[in-house]
Each structure stands twice: as C-alpha cells, then as structure tokens.
C-alpha cells in the first residue's frame, strides 16, 4: 500500500516537473533588455566608446556572419558571440518554432528578402525604428532597396543588411567581339534590353556557334520587367511577362541554350571552356565522354555574388568577361540582420547589428576580406567604384553594381512573388515541353494562383 502511494506520488511529481519544464518558455520575455541580463558597459574616458560585455547568440543562414562575429569579438574582448549556421531550407522552420515558443535565444536573427515579410508579420524582428535604436536616421547610409527590404508593411525598420546583391549579365567579351565586332558593356546591354531582343540575340549567338545561356532558367532573374506581380491586390500578367514566356519557350524549343543548368558540373565547366550540348546534370568526370556537339556559353545572368563564381571558375578565360545589364535591374538573395523581439540582450544585439550593417570601417574590412562582395554602404561603394576588375576586362564592376543597386525598384517585390513565380515557371515548362498550349498553361496558372491566394483578384 505504502509502495503504491510512494509510486503514485513519484509519478505525479515527475509529471508536474515535466509540465513545468514545458511551460517554462511561456513566461513573459518581452521585457526590454535593460531589465535582465543586459549588456554591461564600463564608462571609460568620455570621448571613448563604452566597453561592451556580455554574450550574444546568432542564428544565421550565411557563413559570413561567423566572420563578422569574430571581428566583433576582436574589437570587443568582453563579448562572447555564439554563431549557429542553419541551412537556408531549414531556417524558417527552426526560427518559427523557437520564436513561437518565445525563446530568449537567439538574440540576432537573419532572413533572406523573400522570408522577411512573414517574419516581420509574425513579430519575430524587433522594431528598430523605435528608440533607443532609431534606425531611420541611417537611411541615407545604405543603398535604398536594402533599406526598403528591411521595412515591414507599416514602414518600420526591422532588419538591415551588410550586403547588396544587384545582378548583372556576365558575358564573354571575346565572343561578343567575334559575333558583333563590339564587346562594350553598353552595346551588349542593348542585346539584352528586353525579352524579345534576348530571343533574337540568342539566335545570333547560336548561328555563330555558341549558346546565349547555360539554360533558360537564366531568364528568371529578370522577373519584374513587366511590373509587380500583384498591384492593388490584383494579379497582373503584363505583356512583358507574356514576352518572357515566349522568349523562354523559344530558347528551349529552338535549342538556343546549352542545356547545362545553373550549378551543374557542365555549367561551371562552361566558364573556362567548351562543354557538350545537353550535358544537363552529368558529373564533371563524365563530361569528356559525353560526345555530341560542343559549344561555349556566352553569358550568365546572376546576382553580384555570381560575379565571384564566374571569376573563380573562369580559368584561362579570366580577363575575357564583362558585365552588362538586362531587361531590368534585379537583385538576388542577401542576408538581412535583426534582433529577436524576445531577446533579453537587445542593447548588445543592437551594437552588433550596427557594427555589421552601419559601420563604415566594417564595410571596408568586409569588402577586402570577401574579395569582391558588394556592401550596402554607399560611401564604401563610392570609395571603390574606380577599382578595375581584372577578371572582367578591367571593367569598373563596383561602379556598375552601385548603379544597378540604385536602380532597383523594391516596390515591385511582393510577398506573393515566390509562389506565383513557382507556378509561372511550371506554366512555362508545360509550354516548353509541349504538354500544354500557351492559353491552357496560362489558364491553369490563374487557377493555381487563385487556389493558393483566394484573396487576390484575378481577371482571366
């Protein structure tokens, strides 16, 4: 009898403890940083900055932040920063799970542009427009579209980025010279000025024995040539988008591309020399044995980080590349940094965000360390704009990217873009492969978008 009572009490105790452990995260954690384990500052001489002390936990999807954290610790020996790198595909799920449970850590959280609207709406990112942060005062320091991308639907700043990722078309100057007798970026930009012109250029390039792109996926980097997908809550399928579809279908069906998809071994190999046509996802060691026609790829449409990929794989073609602009200015990716609204070390976290994204010295350091990453700080981009890039035929690529970054119209980006883009891509693929006519594919595209976003007005 006694034993049973003891057992029952023990079980009840274990259960009570486990329930208490589950409920631990339900406690209020929204109190301002100042109230709890906050940053300690030691006042030194009045003109010297206060010494920072404390611990920060960063959850990031970019390895870059490890370098920033190391630099921050080097500058502030009293600070310990723990950086956890999470794969981009897992990041939203992990962050959502942690912050829905109001976890006190991480202190610093990040997001790529397409993730930000949902993160902002969920209230994960601290409002940096409010005091004591007052992030709006730094607006003019960084590239406009970066500032815009970090604001929520009410215009409050919630994240900032140390980098800008404007895009370009990296093309082979030697091939342009052979085909048109002109390799100038301005001339080549004209050859890519709109989707119809791209299709015509692709024919010229093929007739000369080359292929314009590795695959038709290159076009996807210019999705907003025809304005935003959603305007005034209406889905807009503009003429430019229809031209985009026609160009993608023509490039595919007339075999105007090399059929070496982005990130395939053949795609990397094409930057330094000829590759077999239709190599698709063949392994690098199989490329030689594939046989069939060989070709060289003329151009690669990619964000600024792509210029580094081309540089690192150009081999003997280094120096033969140039950068031209496409049908519209675009950007791709980029890591935006903010403070978790549940962090208890917000003051120190803000110091880190400022150090990473708003500090000129850091931006200069990152430009050197990353060997070519485009920072978001205008003054630093201005200071390097006359640097000549050896890989790109001594073109002033920083000047090019600064100009492109300033031309990006962030109002064209909507929270619906990723999913609508997926279904638009599926519609194009159905027409490319002959599974559907253009009309059928568009009709289904409307149906699909209406299914996933019934709140949008769709006029067929």
């Amino acid at each position: 009898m006694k034993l049973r009572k003891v057992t029952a009490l023990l079980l009840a105790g274990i259960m009570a403890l486990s329930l208490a452990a589950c409920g631990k995260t339900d406690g209020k954690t929204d109190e301002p940083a100042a109230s709890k384990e906050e940053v300690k500052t030691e006042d030194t001489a009045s003109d010297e900055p206060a010494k920072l002390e404390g611990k920060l936990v960063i959850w990031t999807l970019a390895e870059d932040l490890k370098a920033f954290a190391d630099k921050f610790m080097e500058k502030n020996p009293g600070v310990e920063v723990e950086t956890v790198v999470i794969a981009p595909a897992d990041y939203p799920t992990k962050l959502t799970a942690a912050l829905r449970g109001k976890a006190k850590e991480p202190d610093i959280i990040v997001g790529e542009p397409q993730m930000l609207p949902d993160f902002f709406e969920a209230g994960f990112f601290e409002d940096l427009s409010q005091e004591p942060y007052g992030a709006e005062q730094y607006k003019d320091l960084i590239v406009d579209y970066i500032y815009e991308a970090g604001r929520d639907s009410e215009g409050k700043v919630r994240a900032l980025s140390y980098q800008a990722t404007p895009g370009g078309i990296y093309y082979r100057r030697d091939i342009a010279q052979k085909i048109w007798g002109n390799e100038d970026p301005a001339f080549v930009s004209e050859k890519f000025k709109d989707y119809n012109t791209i299709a015509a250029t692709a024919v010229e390039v093929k007739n000369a024995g080359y292929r314009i792109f590795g695959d038709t996926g290159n076009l996807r980097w210019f999705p907003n040539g025809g304005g935003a997908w959603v305007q005034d809550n209406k889905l807009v399928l503009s003429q430019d988008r229809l031209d985009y579809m026609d160009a993608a279908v023509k490039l595919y069906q007339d075999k105007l591309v090399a059929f070496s998809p982005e990130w395939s071994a053949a795609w990397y190999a094409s930057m330094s020399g000829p590759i077999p046509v239709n190599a698709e996802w063949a392994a690098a060691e199989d490329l030689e044995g594939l046989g069939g026609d060989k070709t060289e790829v003329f151009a690669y449409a990619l964000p600024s980080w792509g210029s580094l990929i081309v540089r690192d794989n150009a081999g003997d073609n280094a120096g033969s590349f140039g950068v031209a602009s496409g049908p519209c200015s675009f950007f791709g990716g980029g890591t935006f940094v903010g403070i978790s609204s549940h962090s208890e070390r917000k003051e120190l976290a803000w110091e880190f965000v400022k150090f990473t994204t708003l500090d000129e010295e850091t931006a200069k350091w990152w430009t050197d360390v990353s060997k070519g990453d485009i920072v978001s700080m205008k003054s630093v981009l201005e200071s390097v704009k006359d640097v000549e890039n050896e890989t790109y035929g001594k073109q002033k690529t920083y000047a090019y990217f600064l100009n492109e970054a300033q031309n990006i119209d962030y109002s064209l980006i909507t929270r619906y873009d990723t999913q609508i883009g997926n279904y638009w891509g599926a519609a194009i693929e159905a027409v490319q492969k002959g599974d559907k006519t253009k009309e059928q594919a568009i009709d289904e595209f409307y149906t699909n978008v209406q299914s996933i976003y019934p709140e949008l007005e769709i006029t067929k």
Partner: protein
Amino acid sequence: MRIPGNLGTRRRKNVNNTGYLFVLPFVIIFLIFSIYPVIRTLYLSFTQYKGYGEPVLIGIDNYKRVIKDAMFWRALLNTLKIWSVNIVVQLGLAFLLTIIFSDLKYRMKGVGIFRALFYLPNLIAPASVAFLFAALLDWQFGTLNQILIDAKVVKVGIDWLGQPGTAQLAVAIIGAWMWFGNSFIMLMAGVQGISKDYFEAAAIDGAGRWKVFGSITLPLLKPILLYVAITSLIGGLQIFDIPFLITDGIGKPNGSLNTAVMYLYNTAFNYNNVGYASSIAYFLFIIIAIASGIEYKIMYHKKED
C-alpha cells in the same frame, strides 16, 4: 468480522487502480500527442491562422473554400490516379505470389526467406527510395533508359519523370514495389489461417487451381483482404513522401504529382495558411472515411444478402 466476499471485491478494485497507474504514461502521451493535435486541428480548421499570431474564427469558410478549390480537387484526382494503379499492381503481385507460395502442389520451400526479401523494399527510407528511382529513371543517364536503348526498344531515352502520365505511373509502381511485400505477408498469413482440410477436400473432389482459389481461398481471405484494401486506401490517399521528394515540391511535371497531402503541406508551410490546411486535413479524413465505408460495403455485400 470480515466477509470474504468483500475482501475479494476490495482486492479486485485495488488491482484495477494499479492498472490505471500503469496505463497512465501512455494515456498522457496519447492525449498530448494524438488527441490534442486532432482537436486543435479541428479548431484551427474553423479559423484563419497563418501559423503565427492569433487564430481568428471564420466559421465554415475554409470548408466552403475546399469544395470550390480547383487545385485541391486536381490534387485529389492525381492521388486517386496514382493509388488506383498502385493498388492493382501491389495487390495483383501479392496475390500472384500468395497463390504460388500457398499452392500445395508446388510445395514451395524457403517461404520465410522470400517473405523477408519481398518485405525489404519497405524497410528502405522513402528518401533513399526517391533518390534511387530518380537516378534509375533519369531521362538521360537513367539505368532504365540505358537498358531500353541498348535493347533497341527506344532510340531516345524516355523522360519518365518529366511527363505527367509516366511520372504518375512511376510513382504508382514505386509505391507498389515498396508495399507488395507487406500485402504478401498479410495474405499469406490469411491463407495459412485457412484449414488445410478445405484444400485437401477440394483436391479429392478434383477441383482445379483456379476453382480452389475462387471458391475457397478468396472467400475465406475476405477479412484480410478488407484490412489490406482499407489500409492501402488510407495510405494511398495520404501519399506524400515519394512524390514530394521526386519533384520540385509543387508536383512537377505540370502539377501531375501534386497529391492531396502535398497540397495540404504546402498550404500550411509554404502558403502560410494553417487554418485552411487544417480544413483540408479534415476534408480528406471525411473522404477517406466514406471511401473505407464504401469499400467495406462492397466486400461484404454478398454476405449481407
């Protein structure tokens, strides 16, 4: 003075209480991880909820939307197409093997080894199966196309996973390959449960193999068959992993591999509409319950007559 009867009653009562204590851990886990999510999902199905923030009650709007949602019905049709091919191949193969292995005339040896071998595909993680078949069925470098080209059956490789019809067929066959061993074990167990007297009597009466199968094996296998059919229907309508892993996540090619559960998953986690996804889950549950009921009725139709 103690009355023996009372003592007995008390003792029995105490034993029962101890029993409750033993099942308590399971009941608690069951309540937290099974019952609570079921009830919570039902509640969320009547709300607008993005997965964060507070759910807002909207009545039966989500259910009205499911009924009118073209993509859901298309996904369900895709699921049914894949399942119907899958079940025919899976059960057909399992039946064939059951007939062979249970036939007294053949006296097959090593049933246990074969049973284990047939069951093996079921032990491989779906992710591995998906990657394995994606490699086998690749239009350019896939083993299947290499064999067909070498045998001069085709000149150019077939894009198995790039065309809607063949992609659905491929997923159905993969499912059948994974699950026929499971069905085979069930059917064999059913056959072994039938008294040998029936088969011997039939043999003495001169009944042929098909007569024995149609008049003895099949009718007596009905309960097992019903179990296999219903579990297969439930599993089939919930198909998710292979199509999800073998495609781009939205049912490539041309939406043909977008199954009902894949649509549910995307609605909840990619389109951020947990409320609507919950109503799809319940809608699917109702459809599966009705389909299982119909299946039960069909199989026991004659008996009731």
